[in-house]
């Protein structure tokens, strides 16, 4: 096997859980794992080398976006590997026990381990699992985006309420300035406002409502 320039580790800093095979020919060649603790972190295991005792796997981290970009042919395996500062190289024996763990800076990966510039996604080249994974990520992203939109709308609404209160407060001040001498408070309008439970249930809106009522009252009755 190739000699690796890197730092030996006692154990991995994550617990890999296999999710599926991406490329397979007479056995897995590229597989997808996630961290058992942080399930949003993806690890790609790419077969790299072997001798009589060990199979060596090159392991690198990628994100949801990386996976989507790869499947949409916006990037390739080579760029995904090079976007990391380092990779893990795992020597695994016949008993599937990890015997050596090496952290290897990306620039020191033996060139014979690296994919080519043509390592782009091709339909049908990979196992069906890849497209299942793609749709899963898109679905996750869709839910996330919906949540984000809802959050933004709620924030906007909250700001609107605040602005509305500010506006009413300003109007009240204006009314104070005007203070017409003679007016009558329209009972119907007051009833409509006070019967609106949604408004009166909220303290802020009660202030708002009270402000409006007071302003109108003062404006009309004075």
């Amino acid at each position, binding site marked *: 096997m190739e000699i690796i320039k890197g730092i030996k580790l006692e154990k991995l800093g994550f617990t890999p859980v296999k999710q599926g095979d991406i490329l397979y020919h*007479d056995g897995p060649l590229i597989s997808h794992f996630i961290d058992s603790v942080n399930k949003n972190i993806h690890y790609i295991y790419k077969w790299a080398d072997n001798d009589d005792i060990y199979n060596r796997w090159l392991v690198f981290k990628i994100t949801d976006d990386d996976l989507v970009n790869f499947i949409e042919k916006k990037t390739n395996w080579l760029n995904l590997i090079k976007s990391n500062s380092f990779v893990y190289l795992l020597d695994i024996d016949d008993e599937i026990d990890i015997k050596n763990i090496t952290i290897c800076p990306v620039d020191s990966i033996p*060139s014979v381990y690296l994919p080519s510039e043509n390592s782009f996604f091709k339909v049908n080249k990979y196992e069906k699992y890849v497209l299942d994974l793609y749709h899963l990520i898109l679905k996750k992203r869709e839910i996330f985006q919906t949540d984000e939109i809802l959050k933004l709308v709620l924030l906007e609404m909250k700001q609107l309420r605040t602005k509305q209160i500010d506006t009413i407060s300003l109007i009240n001040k204006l009314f104070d300035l005007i203070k017409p001498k003679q007016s009558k408070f329209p009972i119907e309008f007051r009833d409509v406002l006070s019967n609106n439970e949604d408004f009166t249930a909220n303290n802020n809106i009660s202030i708002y409502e009270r402000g409006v009522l007071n302003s109108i009252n003062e404006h009309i009755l004075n």
Partner: protein
Amino acid sequence: MDYFFLDDFKKLTVTCPPRHYKPFIEDKMVFRWIFDNLNNENNFKPRFYLVPKKELEKINNIKNPTQRDTRICSMLALSMFVTEKQAYERFKDIEDDMGDKIFDRLGTKIASGIITKNDGVNGDFDDFGHFNHHPVKNNNYSQRFQIISNLR
């Protein structure tokens, strides 16, 4: 048929080879990736006999017997290609992703040979022209196949 891996098939809970696997109607030239030397003992060994013991244990631990034995049955087949071009292109696709070391694992040459209707049964051809072949005993493929081109 007196299959090469008949003893293994008998241990399975699924029909192996699958019922839809058929012999070729007439002699057919097929293609397979092999290592430099035609006498390399791994050239015509199915995946089942090449994987690490623990990987086999993992497969044997699959709870669903149909799922487990379908997988083992597939691992007892030899990978073949319909044309030399398809054998070459599929290898190059994999090489693009894997780098030069893939030659050590999958082979360095393309060999071709004639498979007759008496040599075993074959699965469907996939999009790459790949298919599974379950050979009979005494097939003597290492003598009947010839290296025809390089994968490097």
